[in-house]
Structure formats: C-alpha cells, structure tokens
C-alpha cells in the first residue's frame, strides 16, 4: 500500500508541475505584458510594476521566472482578477464549494439512477427491458446539456412553476458564508428560517443537478451493464448457481459487489466529464460556481482569472481522480499489487 501511495503522490506532483508549466506559459501566450498577466494588476503604477517585475523575477532567466511563479502559487497567491481587481484566491474559495456541491449531488444522482438501471439491463440481458434501458441511455447521452437545461427551465420553472430557475437559494435568505457548501452553511446558521432556507436550497438544487446528472448517468448505465454482464459470465457465479444459491443471493451477495468495483474505477474519470457539463449548466442556471465565473472571465478577457481558474479546476479534478484510485485500491486488493500506475 505504501508503494501505491508513493506512486500516486509522485504522479500527482509531476502532473501538477506540468499543469503549472502550462498555466505559466499561458501568461506568455496571452496578449499583453507577461507580468501583468501573472499578477492581474492592470492599473499598476510604474513603481508597482517595478515591484512586480522584481517579485516575479522577470529580469532573470525563464527558469527563475517559473520558480517565482510557482512560489506565488504555492503561497496561494494567484494574482488578482483583471475584471474585479480582487484576489483570485478569494474568489475561488467563494465559488469552488458551490461547484463541488453541485457536482457531488449530480454525481450521486447519476450513480443512484445509472448503476441500478445498468444492473437491471445486464440481468435482463437481451430482453425488452434491456433494450429499452439501452435506448434511453443512448437518447439521454445524445441530448446536448445546454438545450436540456433550457428545456427543463421552460417546463418545470415557467410552465409548471414547480422549481426555481436561477441561483443557489432565494435571495430572501441571508446565509452566512462558512464552508461555502450551501447545505452545511444553512445547517450551521442560526437563522430562524433555517428549514425554509433548506427547503428552498433543495428546490434550487434539483433542476441543475438533474440536468448535469443525465449524461454521466447514461454512461454509468452502460458501464455497470457491461461489468455486470462480465461478472455474471464468470465461473464463480456459475459455481454459485450450481451450488443451488437463489438468484437474489447470487446477485446481491456476489455479483453486485464485484461489478461495483469495476465501476468505481471509472467514477474519477466521469467526474472530469461531469465538471465540464457543470460549467455550462452553471451558466444556464446562474449558479454562482467556478464554471460560470470562468466563462465570464473568458468573456471579459480576464487572463489571470482564466489561467488560475483552469489550474485550480484541473487540480481539483486530479485530486478526485487520485481519491477514487485510493478507494478502488482499498476495495480491491488486486489493484494494490499493480506495478504500473494506471
């Protein structure tokens, strides 16, 4: 397990180095002065500019420059946003939790819906229900998310009036920022309207989370179906059946567990996909997350924000990857022996 951990850690460090190198090079590729792209201080006076040039070691070779850039990032200094002139780290700390919250809920929905459906399809392999589930998955996978989001607003917010269309919570509720995860903040707050706020936040969550969940859910359907078919074809299942175990016993005790392990490997992979979808969805549902902020930054040509936002987002996705790897390894002893990092 130790080698496994070290392996993952070195992988993490090297990937982060490559990522920072990429984001460092963006400052040169974006139009404008490199040091201003680094720091985001567009209105810097001559003295401030000289100071910036010094701290980013712009007079020295490119390696020193990269080192200085890395030091800033490791100290949590991403520069300031060109548009709002406030520190990017502050903005990210405020916005990232909202994205994490939305993505996690969406992931949960995708798994809770997708995996059981996939299992059912595998158990009923080549029967009508299998075909129906597969065609639905195909359909769901082909629907573009921006269209689905607008359609959901049209039907559920405007037409039926069941669910709100924008934001994280009704503006009437004043929830203090503690963790940034809205549900925790509501539970931590001492507002007399806690439960009203909780209800309201849940109602705001449903539409965007479901819209994001659709595409990953269809992938989970296909993944879990494939892995379940594999497992059911394995010889130990045949042996169990020969021993006279009931169908339920075979499925719940043996098949599901083994099939799930294969799926967990893919959760990390799906998470990257999900965050991409979440960025578009955040714009549609005016969700105050990092995706919307990043897209706004692109509109506003806020290079410093784009660069740091990408870095933080990819770092976040990579951490999720590694975490799922650990979970997989913890669940599957075979994976720990794997000599080559996957």
């Amino acid at each position: 397990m130790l080698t496994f951990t070290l392996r993952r850690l070195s992988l993490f460090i090297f990937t982060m180095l490559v990522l920072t190198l990429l984001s460092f090079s963006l400052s040169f590729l974006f139009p404008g002065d490199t040091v201003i792209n680094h720091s985001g201080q567009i209105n810097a006076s001559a003295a401030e500019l000289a100071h910036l040039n010094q701290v980013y070691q712009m007079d020295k070779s490119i390696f020193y420059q990269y080192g200085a850039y890395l030091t800033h990032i490791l100290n949590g200094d991403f520069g300031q946003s060109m548009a709002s002139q406030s520190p990017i780290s502050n903005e990210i700390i405020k916005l990232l939790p909202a994205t994490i919250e939305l993505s996690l809920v969406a992931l949960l929905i995708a798994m809770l819906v997708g995996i059981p459906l996939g299992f059912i399809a595998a158990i009923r392999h080549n029967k009508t229900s299998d075909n129906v589930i597969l065609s639905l998955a195909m359909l769901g996978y082909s629907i573009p998310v921006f269209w689905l989001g607008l359609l959901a607003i049209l039907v559920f917010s405007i037409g039926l009036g069941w669910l709100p269309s924008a934001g994280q919570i009704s503006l009437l509720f004043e929830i203090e920022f503690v963790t940034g995860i809205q549900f925790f903040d509501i539970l931590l707050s001492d507002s007399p309207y806690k439960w009203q706020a909780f209800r309201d936040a849940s109602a705001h969550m449903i539409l965007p989370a479901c819209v994001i969940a659709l595409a990953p859910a269809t992938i989970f359907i296909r993944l879990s179906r494939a892995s379940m078919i594999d497992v059911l074809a394995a010889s130990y299942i045949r042996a169990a059946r020969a021993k006279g175990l009931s169908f339920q016993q075979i499925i719940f005790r043996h098949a599901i567990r083994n099939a799930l392990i294969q799926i967990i490997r893919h959760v990390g992979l799906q998470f990257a996909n999900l965050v991409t979808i979440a960025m578009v969805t955040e714009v549609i549902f005016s969700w105050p997350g990092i995706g919307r902020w990043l897209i706004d930054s692109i509109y506003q040509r806020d290079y410093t924000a784009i660069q740091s936002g990408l870095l933080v987002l990819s770092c976040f996705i990579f951490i999720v990857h590694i975490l799922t790897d650990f979970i997989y390894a913890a669940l599957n002893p075979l994976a720990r022996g794997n000599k080559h990092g996957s």
Partner: protein
Amino acid sequence: MAVLTMNFNSIFSLAIAAFVSLLTGCNEGNKLSLSERSIIYCSEGSPETFNPQLSTSGTTSDATAKQLYNSLIVYKGKSNTLGPSLAKSWHVTRDGKKITFYLRQDVSFHQTSYFTPTRLFNADDVLFSFNRILDKKHAFHHVSGNQYPFFQSVKFSELVEKVEKINDFTIRFILKRNDSSFLANLATDYAVILSEEYGQILQEKNAEHEIDIFPIGTGPFKLKDYRVGSLIRFYRHESYWQEKAKIEQLVYDISPSKTSRLTKLLAKECDVSSYPIAHAKIAERSDLQLESITSLNVGYFAFNTKKEPFNNKMVRQAISLAINKQALIETVYQGQAAWAKSILPETSWAYDKNTPELGYDPVRAKSLLEVAGYPQGFTMDIWAMPVQRAYNPNAVTMAKLIQADLKKIGVTVKIVSYEWSTFLRRLSQGEHQSFLLGWTADHPDPDNFFTPILSCSASELGNNRTFWCNKEYDQLLQKALKTTNMSKRKGYYAKAMAIINEEMPLLPIAHSKRFQARGTDVEGDILSNFGGISFYNAAKKTITNEAKSIVLPEIADKASN
C-alpha cells in the same frame, strides 16, 4: 440474505422518510413565511451610488431615492401638487425670493450596523445636504467626484444665494431671483436629506467617501447588504416617521438580462420585474399583471424653421396634417405609448385638455400646400436619430413611415442619419430641414418641457434645433415662472401649448410608457409618473395585521444586529 435486503430496504425508507420530514415537517413554526413578508424586485442594473444627489440615472434613483431617503417636500396625488414631507409646511415671501421651511420634529435616521443616530432629524441635516451641493468649501463637496448632475442642469447654485438655519426646525432658502420651479426641484428624487451627524462621524474616521456607499437616510427602508452586480438588500426602517412600510424586507435582484428577468418573473423568483419584455405573454397569465405609466417625455418630429420651405407656417401645418400619428404609435412604439397632443404629457398638472390639435387630414394638407405655393410638392430631408431612446425606440422606421405618408401629398423625403454625436453636432449647426428627436424631463415641472425644447434662449444655445423663436411664447413662459399661483401658471402654459400647435415648429408624436410586471399577490402602487419607484406602499396580499404583530420582534432583533 433476506435479512440483508430487508436491512437495505428499511435503511433506505428511513432515509427517505427523514428527508421528506426535513422538507415538509419543520415548516409549521412560522405561520407567515419569509417570502410573504418580503418583496423581490428584479432590477435592470446596479446603482452607481447610493446617493441620488450624485446621479440622474433612473436605475440609481429607483434603487435609492424613495427607498432610503425623503425630501423636504413631495408631489402628492393625481394632480401632482406639492405636499409636505420632512417639512410640515413652507412659506414663500411675496417676491418669491425667500422660502422658509418648517421641519418635522419626529423624524429619525436609520440605525444600521455602521451607524447609530443619537439625535433626531433637524435643520443641520438640511443645511448639510444642500451645502454639500452649493458650498465648494464644504467638507463633502468634493467627495465622490464633485458631480451633482441634476443640480448642475437646473443651475441650482446660481439660483440659491444661501441656505439659513433660523432655528433647529426652521430653515430658509434665499434665492437670487424668483423661480417657481425651485420648489419643484426640491421635490425631486435628487434633493434628498442626508444625516449631518453621520457626516461628522465619517469625517472623524477620515472615511468621507462612505457617505455615498453606506447610506443613512430617513426613508422607509435601510440598507442591509449590497453585492455589486448581484443584489441589494433593504430592511424596513422600524422607526419611520410615517406609518411603517408594509414589507419587512426588500431585495433587488440585479438581473441586467431581459430574458432572465422574464424567466425569473414567470418562475415566481421575482415578485416585481422592471422593464419586462414579452408583454403579451405576461398579460395572458392570470397570476401576473402588467402595468404602465406614461413617462414624462415626448418624442417629436420637428422642422428647421430657419430653412426653406419650413420658414412658412403653412408648410409646417400641411406636413403635420399629412402624418398619420396613430400608425406611428402602433408601429414604432407597438402601441405602448400615449398619443401626444402637445409636448406636455397628460400626467403633468399643467396639461390642458382643451389644447387644439391639427389631427390627420391629408386632403387639407394637400390644399394647404397649394395655398403655400407648393402645388407640385417638394423634396425634403428627415434626420432620424441613430440611437434607441424611450421616447423614440426606432427613429429610422418612423422616418420611413413619415416618408410614405408624405408621398401621398406629393412631398419626396430623403432619410438622413449620422452617428449619434455627429448627428447632434450637425443638428445644432442647423444643417437639417427636419428631424426626429425627443426630450425626457428631469423633473415634473412643466417648465422643463417648454423652455429647453422651444424657447428663444435654447435656440441660441443650439438645444432648440427648430430655431423657432416666438416672443409671445417666451413671454408666457417668463410669466409662468414668476407666479406661484398654480391656476395662473396652468393658464399661461395652456396658451403656450396653443401657440405651439398653431405655429407648429414641431409635431409632438408620443409619450412613451414605462412598464412593470408583478405577481397578482403584490399590491400597492410602486410606479409613479416621474422619478423613481417606491416600495413604501407595496405589500403581499396574505399579510394580515395579526400575523404582523407576531413576526415583528424577530426581524427587529435581526435588523439591529
């Protein structure tokens, strides 16, 4: 195995039950939910400042003036006559140069997280508020950019000689000359009263600029929270000098996108929405209502009276007779504007119903042209403004319609349009024959229409681009400004309107309307004919007196934090 699945099932159902109870069960505590005591307003933009003295933008005065502040006097009732507010009464000397205000003695300022007043409103606050604008040496005069656009446009500092404190609750304005629009200016959204005590505290803290960012006023609401580009949160001012506002919380949801305002309105995330689109869609919903008021503006078609052939009154009349105004209103304004009978909108108190109007009569137009000496018609140009304004949403289309109308009486029209600043410059140089333009009033005093658009002095300055100068008309305006007798003024303005419609230097076309949409559960007037909106009288229908007394202490506690 069965046990295991049972376990799964029971845990699952437990979790579901717990979740459902979270969602529904705990809601019994508050009889009246927060949303029934609050109003969310979808506004079209962020205010530039929280002090309406500093800006004439409609968005700013909507968000600040009538919510946070009071003025000394206000416009009251349907006829828009002046009434008391922070001043209980006032007295104007016979020469009109000294105006004394007797102030209320029971007015308290907002208590917020950043300021706690120790005294009630008095004459020092009035002195402070107006000297900030008038006195160049005032400690706050140069704070926040030294721009007081409304007061500069009415030449306030040239009019007021000084403001005197007679005693703690009496204040006197001494004017350099008699001007009956002075009181009207004091009743606008811009002439608000700030707190002198708060100013002093800020001065001690060396944070003068905060006076316009963290506002303190006497109005029915106080500022709780403002996030740029996102929201403004107001709480009710619990010790307001009049009856308290009916709602406890007012939130401005800043949504610059028209479609997102519509979506939020339809999805009930806003109770009230500013400038809605898709009027037909809103009108067909039974749970929403659309309302409108005629704004104090006018869109007009005007002639260069210095140029051939429009120096001839009969030609101007003929052209005016040939224009189908109704068609213009229906096409260009989509029917959402009021027919302009004169340059003054019907909502003004000085409007006279009996103003004669030429009307639409192409046959008479043709014969008038013949009398004027143009039986074969002529060629003219129309300058159409290139930008969209409330008073004329599409001048080029309007010019095309007029072109078609005039063709019927044998007049050929060329449409001319330049980039906006070039357009205005060339207009003031008088290069045009006729043009489409408009005017939005700064304050409801009728003089604000007559003098800037058509007076001789305006024609010299280039603002009156008809270059029409009528001595009789100008004398009427002078007389109207010198008297404070309302019915006399009304008489003078009625005569002035009659002169315009006879001489026809311009043809008034329409007064545009301002629209607002709201849920049917919101009651009380919000829009007013001029100036910003006010939520003071707005309420949700479900609020009852009984429920009010239950919930009051709670929010009062919160508000004082």
